[in-house]
């Protein structure tokens, strides 16, 4: 763009430069009258015209004018030319000019007049060029350029007369050829078709005025009068070009006039078509932008009314096996609903493509009053996508004239757009839903990480290793440690049923319950019973929590725990593995006495190197691609093989095996592992 600007101003500079040159040349050599000077003068004039033409051509090309503006511009300029020609004829005397008796200010003003005429004529010509290329699909450069060449030839052929008075037939020949080419080029009026009806009417009037103006200007120039002499004496070539421009104007304006005249009867039809195309275009844009179906529906009904020349339009879309009214245009909501009901009852089997119904009277009953609605014509278009019926678009007229082919096409097109929009709206809703879900899961995961203990406590007798791997949907696993006093550690491992944010919410509740109870109640059974009572307010009927709560007494070297529906504890002691599954039902399954009555406590006397494993069902239920479970056998085997290793080593080994086992299957549930390894006091004392 910048580069272009520079060259454009450069072109203007050339024009100004040549004009100054021309002015100086004429001032200096005004009294000389030799052939050489004459030729030089003609060349300079030609350069002025050409550079101005090139400048204007680019100027107009950049300004993407509407053809209508271009025509109005030429009208103003043609009027200006007429005005100047008449003024010149009034103020200057023909005989004075011919005998060169003009004083300096006079001749100066004549020069100014010449410049103005050059400017106006060139502008008109450039405007015609712009119109010529407007809306043309083919490459027409050759036609126009040939004309330009002949115009240049017509310009310079005037010089030949200077050498020999009788030598004027080349000039005439070029002149005639130029006119023929002008006539051919004047037939390029494709742009007229694209004007609106109103513009066409204006254009008709303007073209009459234009033809007259150019004709009058032409007449003024070929008469023997002052202005003709002024221009001809200044430059014969310029005179030729000027005349030709006026002829071009006459021919082109009259072609415009006739073309517009022929276009007028169909103008309305064309307008409608254009309206339809542009409204479909708008709709397409809208469909990609608007997520809100109701807004889109309103646009569709409004456009349908406009384009089909109908009085009412309304749109219904399918929703749970019924059709719901989305938007009405010019018709009452209730009426539209009733009419839809009636029409679909009557015709729903006939609506394959657009169905048109002639004059119909529809009685509708609204509560206790009944009223009659009569329509002159109704069109119903189905909204179909991939063979699925998404709804109907209705449009109706008061007066009795039927929907024609074009209307039917338009209604059909709008219905198609509407169905695409309905489909899109659905998809967008789904994807938003999905996005919301993913965000929710992110939040849930964050909550879960905040709830789980950051630091695992360390003791002389006890080494703890924990692993937690959340599943994509967040399963609701929870574990925690409570240092009750110097001698006791309480711990909980739990799994909340459900997933996502609701599970995370219950987890945080759970954390609160266990944290507060751990410091008050010192037996696992009592604590879990209390927790079950408290959870009654939190859990809904469908949800439950499985949990193990235990207390390790470092002094007594004892582990006490109770299991409320949670996975069995794996206890590895003296090379023997025991699955500990004391009775106990999940939290939230029953709030009566059953919970307390069935819950039993287990006490283990801890020995050196005992390994106690708590875990969530994410481990035994981890699946491979064949949907087989990881199961207990593999689990137990890994514990057995690594029983002499550190808890961290054991847990990492276990996780390695699980991830290898289920490498082709995404993790379905949270995985939690809490592993205890005990060092007995005797051993410790023995070491020290």
């Amino acid at each position, binding site marked *: 763009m910048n580069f272009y600007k520079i060259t454009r101003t450069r072109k203007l500079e050339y024009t100004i430069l040549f004009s100054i040159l021309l002015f100086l040349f004429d001032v200096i050599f005004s009294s000389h009258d030799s052939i050489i000077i004459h030729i030089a003068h003609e060349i300079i004039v030609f350069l002025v015209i050409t550079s101005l033409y090139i400048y204007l051509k680019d100027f107009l090309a950049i300004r993407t004018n509407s053809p209508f503006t271009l025509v109005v511009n030429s009208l103003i300029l043609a009027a200006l030319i007429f005005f100047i020609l008449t003024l010149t004829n009034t103020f200057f005397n023909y005989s004075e000019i011919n005998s060169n008796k003009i004083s300096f200010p006079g001749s100066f003003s004549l020069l100014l007049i010449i410049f103005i005429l050059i400017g106006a004529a060139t502008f008109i010509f450039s405007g015609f060029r712009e119109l010529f290329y407007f809306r043309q699909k083919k490459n027409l450069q050759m036609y126009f350029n040939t004309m330009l060449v002949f115009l240049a030839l017509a310009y310079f052929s005037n010089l030949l007369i200077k050498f020999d008075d009788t030598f004027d037939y080349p000039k005439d020949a070029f002149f005639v050829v130029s006119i023929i080419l002008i006539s051919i080029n004047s037939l390029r009026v494709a742009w007229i078709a694209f004007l609106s009806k109103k513009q066409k009417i204006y254009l008709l009037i303007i073209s009459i005025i234009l033809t007259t103006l150019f004709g009058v200007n032409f007449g003024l120039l070929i008469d023997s009068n002052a202005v003709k002499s002024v221009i001809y004496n200044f430059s014969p070539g310029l005179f030729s070009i000027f005349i030709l421009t006026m002829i071009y104007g006459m021919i082109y304006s009259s072609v415009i006039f006739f073309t517009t005249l022929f276009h007028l009867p169909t103008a309305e039809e064309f307008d409608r078509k254009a309206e339809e195309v542009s409204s479909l275009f708008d709709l397409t844009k809208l469909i990609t932008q608007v997520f809100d179906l109701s807004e889109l529906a309103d646009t569709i009904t409004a456009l349908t009314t406009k384009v089909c020349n109908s009085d009412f339009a309304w749109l219904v879309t399918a929703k749970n096996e019924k059709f719901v009214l989305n938007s009405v245009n010019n018709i009452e909501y209730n009426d539209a609903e009733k009419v839809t009901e009636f029409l679909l009852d009557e015709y729903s089997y006939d609506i394959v493509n657009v169905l048109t119904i002639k004059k119909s009277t529809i009685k509708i009953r609204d509560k206790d009053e009944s009223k009659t609605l009569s329509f002159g014509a109704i069109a119903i278009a189905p909204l179909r996508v991939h063979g699925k019926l998404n709804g109907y678009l209705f449009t109706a007229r008061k007066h009795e004239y039927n929907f024609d082919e074009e209307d039917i096409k338009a209604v059909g097109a709008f219905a198609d757009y509407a169905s695409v929009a309905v489909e899109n709206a659905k998809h967008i809703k789904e994807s938003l839903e999905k996005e919301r879900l993913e965000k929710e899961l992110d939040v849930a995961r964050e909550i879960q990480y905040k709830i789980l203990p950051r630091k695992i406590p360390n003791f002389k007798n006890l080494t703890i290793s924990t692993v937690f791997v959340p599943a994509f949907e967040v399963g609701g696993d929870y574990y925690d440690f409570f240092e009750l006093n110097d001698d006791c550690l309480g711990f909980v491992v739990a799994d909340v*049923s*459900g*997933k996502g944010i609701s599970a995370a919410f219950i987890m945080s509740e759970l954390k609160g319950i266990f944290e507060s109870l751990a410091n008050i109640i010192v037996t696992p059974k009592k604590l879990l019973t209390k927790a079950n009572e408290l959870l009654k307010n939190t859990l809904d*009927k*469908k*949800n*439950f929590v*499985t949990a193990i709560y235990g207390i390790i007494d470092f002094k007594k070297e004892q582990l006490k725990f109770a299991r*409320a*529906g*949670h*996975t*069995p504890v794996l206890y590895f002691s003296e090379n023997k593995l025991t699955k500990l*599954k004391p*009775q*106990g*039902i*999940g939290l939230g*399954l*029953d709030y009566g006495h*059953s919970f307390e009555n*069935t819950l039993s406590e287990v006490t283990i006397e801890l020995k050196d190197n005992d390994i106690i494993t708590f875990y969530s069902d994410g481990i035994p239920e981890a699946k491979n691609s064949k949907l087989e479970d990881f199961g207990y056998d593999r689990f137990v085997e890994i514990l057995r093989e690594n029983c002499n290793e550190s808890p961290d080593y054991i847990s990492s080994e276990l996780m390695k095996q699980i991830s290898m086992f289920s490498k082709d299957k995404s993790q379905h549930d949270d995985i939690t592992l809490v592993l205890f390894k005990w060092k007995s006091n005797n051993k410790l004392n023995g070491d020290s």
Partner: protein
Amino acid sequence: MADFIVNLRGVGNVSVIDLKGYLDAHTAPELENIFNKLVDEKKFQVVVNFHDLQYISSAGLGVFMAYVETMRNNRGDIKFSNMKENVYNIFDLLGFPVLYEFYKDEREAINKFNEQEKS
């Protein structure tokens, strides 16, 4: 995931629900619909036949927990029968057998209802 099919049939006054396939969070609503229908029709004596059920998740268990109270408050119940071992283990681990009646065969469960009617 394999499909889930739920089927409802009446045996005398007792409604029997047959389950087939996988009952999890995605398929649980289908079972809920059946229970809603039973509640609407005031049929509170329900036997769930697990003969063809391969797998049940906690969401599946939640369905029974949600309706059992309604059934029992209306002199009905939800009784389970014909469970595969792996499915029973899930119920067992959670302590369901304390709260619900499990039968080897649906006939037994139906008979149990009929005895209760007489008493």
